[in-house]
């Protein structure tokens, strides 16, 4: 049994320790917001946060996640920043098919957590690993650039950060 803390809740799963976190989230816990796109760290559809940092869950053995805070798209709205990123995504109407968007949002939130005012090139660097076959990249950029000034962020976090 492996003990995991996912979106703040402790859960035990019976899985081979080598199983990628992605498949534990999906097949064991039915947290299906995290997507499979390539399985080899090429597309970012499986991006989740491990202790606040963006990782590719398709190449992260579940044993490595044990004892760490795992945040998935389902738990993102629990922070002011996560909620604001989602609001910005909604306002720009980013998604098309939507399949890549969990990964995009998780990667963007990890970026903004470190750097609320990323430059154009910092956004490009942070998002380059997350593929979108529907071509939503420009809207992703626009949404990321909205977050720092978003009223929801100030409101939720009392103006801090």
């Amino acid at each position, binding site marked *: 049994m492996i003990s995991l803390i996912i979106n703040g809740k402790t859960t035990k799963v019976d*899985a*081979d320790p080598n*199983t*990628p976190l992605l*498949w534990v989230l*999906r*097949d*064991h816990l*039915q*947290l*299906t*917001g*995290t*997507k*499979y*796109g*390539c*399985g*080899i760290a*090429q*597309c970012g*559809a499986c991006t989740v946060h491990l202790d606040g940092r963006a990782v590719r869950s398709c190449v992260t053995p579940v044993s490595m996640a044990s004892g760490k805070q795992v945040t*998935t*798209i*389902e738990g*993102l*709205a629990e922070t002011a920043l996560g909620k604001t990123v*989602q609001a910005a*995504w*909604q306002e720009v*109407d*980013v*998604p*098309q*098919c*939507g*399949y*890549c*968007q*969990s990964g995009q*949002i998780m990667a963007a939130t990890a970026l903004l957590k470190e750097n609320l005012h990323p430059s154009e090139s910092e956004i*490009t*660097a942070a*998002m*380059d*690993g*997350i*593929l*979108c*076959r*529907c*071509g*939503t*990249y*420009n*809207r*992703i*950029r626009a949404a990321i650039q909205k977050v720092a000034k978003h009223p929801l962020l100030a409101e939720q976090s009392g103006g801090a950060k």
Partner: protein
Amino acid sequence: MKTQMENQMENMAAQNPSRRKFLKESTALMGGLVIGFYLPIKSGRAYAADAPPKLVYPPNAFIRIAADDSITIVVNKSEMGQGVYTSLPMLIAEELEADWSRIRVESAPVAAVYNHTGFGMQMTGGSSSIPSSWEQLRQVGASGRILLIRAAAQQWGVPEGECHAENSQVIHAGSGKKLSYGKLADAAAKLPLPDNVALKSPKDFKLIGKATKRLDTPAKINGSAQFGLDVYLPGMLTVLIARSPVFGGKVKRFDATEARKLPGVQGVYQVPTGIAVAASGFWPAKTARDLLEIEWDEGPGAALSTPKMRAEYLELAKQPGAIARKDGDTVQGFKAAHKSISAEYEIPYLAHAAMEPLNVVVDLKPDHCSIWTGTQMQTMDHAMAAKTAGLKPEQVEIHTTFLGGGFGRRANPRSDFVVEAVQVAMAVAQPVKVVWTREDDTRGGNYRPMWSDHIEAGIAKDGKPLAWKHTLVGQSIVADTSFEAFMTHNGVDATSVEGAATLPYVIPNLQVELHSPKNAVPVQWWRSVGHSHTAFVVETMIDELAHLAGKDPVAYRLGILPADSRYRGVLQLAAKNAGWGKKKLPAGHAYGVAVHKSFDSYVAEIAEVSLENGKIRVHRVVAAVDCGMVINPDGVRQQIEGGIVYGLSAALHGAITLENGRVMQSNFHDYAPLRFSEMPRVEVDIVASGELPTGIGEPGTPPIAPAVANAVFTLTGKRLRRMPFDQESFA
């Protein structure tokens, strides 16, 4: 000349089924619809997690109004990113006078009432969802509104003519009385259907034409949107299949001893497409599949290699083929030509590479089969599933989930992925989810065909084209499918030559010929189908002619387009917005232009390109589109942006190649979609139009490759005639 597809599209309005018949059938269907759709499933966040709203107003299969005033629109097209879960409800809501904030959407089950009005089956493709639903869904909405007004008028004892509907309410202006749709729905449901339904004049539209937020966005930003891969049933096993490494190969013998030992593995089965490993989840299934030892009888497919095929195709391009179009006399035309050029083009196979790899969930019982998948082709998949399982059609149901991209791959004319999953379910006595890995998806065939083209073109003294001979070589997508009979005539598959045989320029002597060789590689429609390669060939050659004539490429095109051509409007708009011929571009940057019509919509694109470290860099694309009346302008912009990215991915990087029958690409590292860092700025402008709405999902794709290639010529003097462009070196 028009292609079959275009004729079909134009006939759509005329082919609308009689409204009364259609509404009656819809009503008769409601019982089946409700039972079929809300099949209860208990595990996880199952597909039908929402409790069904109380159905009080079922006048037809597309609208349900509940007592709480919520309105459910049942959408008969698959949502694969193109926005139909928003644009189609807009058509109904406009005429229904519905409160847009209370609209929710469900995907339709498989039933004749949900058939495409032009194609006569339930399917999503050909950029035809809006054009084929434009009349139909507005009529659906309008008849609902009439019945609700009638019900209110009867209740109040006032003439109907004194009442009107607004924001999901019927209002009697004289008395100020109001009743909400939810309160009227019961009574309205008992009234006979109206005979005459007058539709609004476009000037009265409140919703159509307004930029409207997508209804599916909330679910797509919080992880709750359910794709096929997200369906979990109780007792379900995940199945991965080891398929032949060569198209058409068969299992000779296999040894699954090691695979079966792995914890979580429930069974290994031989199925018609290969060896299926069923396990408790993806990871054990994948790990066990890697342990299989399989000997294949590879068959003739093993002889296929891209260089050899290319040589054969190029040779064939010099031979006479089936005539797709013949105007004037090209032999005389070339004799009279002032200058002539000829060129060969090489265009590769392409995988669709939707972000969500193919997958199908099947729950097969002795007398029933339930399927969950993201499909674009419900009617055919349904029939093929029933046939495969040996069930009656009414014993099979398909639940269409969100599609994590479709691009044509999820509309397989042989229902390949659905049939295979049913075959697996027949072997495994439990519900199954068949998952294709990214590698399976990339190597699974059903590609955009590989093409070799040859063009010879001559211009007169005044620079105008005098003769044009274009020969295309590539597999027919519809060959040996049920589509062949109505799409192929005199040896010409209309989709092979669309955009080539339909080029708009005035050329007195013009001939287009086609060769359709056959081989073991399965081929399929890929976003914009034939246009995905013909626009490149035609629009780069026209650019060459402009250069040969010493003319500006935009002015040259305008000089050889018919005076009333709608191509002109988009070309002029894009040129104006880009500052073509006026704007001073940064040093080392150049513009390239292309204009193309597909799915009855006209798109011009101007690409601003430079070379960075010997690589093509596209900085900006200025697009102009004429798709007739616009339903959701923001949806149009999304589709043009997405279409450009899809076409640019292929232009710069996309190629599927074969060696000894084996596909050389496997995943995103060697079949690379455009990345964030390669994304150009995109500016989209829409021509104001009162024409009937036309397609938008695909028309953004064709012009981008030629626009970029033409810009590269301006930069380097080098003509790009082979795709993808990243095989060229500009060092």
